[in-house]
């Protein structure tokens, strides 16, 4: 497999979708943190959805990274949902003593979307009182 040096961040309305499909190495995780925080600010995203259904191997670093991303997003006023964690990964994280207390979790992407919509409430549209769009 070609060495991936970036994980794509997809914008879906007011949410960002990050699908981690390669085994994370440390530098990749750091790049992701940079990119994601930048994207949240640029798009004024209200929610972040991290799909880790392809992730088979985790270590404490990845666990901490997930926690950190959630904390950073919260500071930027975006909710984070981690989606599709495999049983083996969940057991490993718990055995490592990382139960990610600040992170929301969901089994499927649909549920995560519902969860995010419920959490952030209806979208706030910027507009003028007279109905015209800002320049």
């Amino acid at each position, binding site marked *: 497999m070609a060495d991936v040096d970036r994980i794509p961040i997809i914008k879906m309305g007011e949410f960002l979708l990050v699908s981690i499909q390669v085994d994370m190495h440390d530098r990749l995780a750091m790049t992701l943190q940079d990119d994601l925080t930048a994207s949240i600010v640029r798009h004024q995203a209200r929610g972040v959805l991290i799909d880790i259904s392809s992730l088979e191997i985790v270590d404490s670093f990845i666990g901490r990274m997930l926690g950190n991303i959630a904390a950073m997003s919260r500071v930027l006023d975006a909710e984070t949902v981690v989606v599709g964690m495999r049983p083996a990964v969940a*057991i490993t994280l718990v055995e490592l003593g990382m139960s990610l207390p600040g992170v929301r979790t969901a089994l499927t992407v649909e549920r995560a979307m519902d969860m995010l919509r419920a959490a952030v409430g209806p979208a706030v549209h910027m507009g003028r009182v007279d109905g015209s769009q800002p320049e």
Partner: protein
Amino acid sequence: MVSNAGSRVVQILDKRERELLAAWVESQLKSPGLRRDLIQEAELREQSREFLRRLRDAAATAGVDDIDSKAWDPVREQLRVLSTERARRGFTPSETAMFVFSLKEPLFARLRQEIGSDTTVLAEETWVANILLDRLGLFTTEVYQQGREELIARQGEEMLELSTPVVALWDGILALPLIGTLDSARTQVVMENLLQRIVETGASIAIIDITGVPTVDTLVAQHLLKTVAAARLMGADCLISGIRPQIAQTIVHLGVELQSVTTKATLAAAFAVALQRTGQTIGRVRPPA
């Protein structure tokens, strides 16, 4: 004349086999330890006949000194089968070993008749026969023990699987009734089963019912919390139900923190919460009579 020792035993086994068999079977049948409820006379007769035949062949080819040698394979094989079979049927170890030991009396009696007044030879031959039958008897007991241990190990494994079912209660609601003590090995199995079923069914709530867990100490509580944390990482909420009054007291006295989990006294109460959280209701079709 060491090499000659045991020659008379072999001789008797060969020459007086029929007579020996009759006496042996008779003494087995008369013995108070015989389990007539577990074994038929015909079967016992057949087993004894076969054993004597194999014993005679082995003794004639390889002598009676080394029952571990290849020539004794048929004898050991039969004892193994017989012992395992008896263990399965519920014979005690002594009842199983008596099969071999009861051969002593008829064999010694025939040795006495054959050798007569020559006490040195008689003592020597009796000693050889004694050692031979002791070894075979011990072998029987050993196999019996092995059979029992295998049985216990298998039952242990079966119990581990049987005792950790994950049942689908309702659409999106799983229940995990735990019976028996939770140790690390079981927690692992429970956790894996639960998480696997969450993936399969897409359930969003799991109820862990601990009505059948006799004691909850700090370790058990820790194991429970681990399971809850793992399920939460997968996106499923856990409720703990079936907490008996005694256990509630123990949990508080031990200072176990169960604050992060919703706990309910009964499975029914937990089920109601689960229905509510998943936005479902169950109602009566008609008013109660």
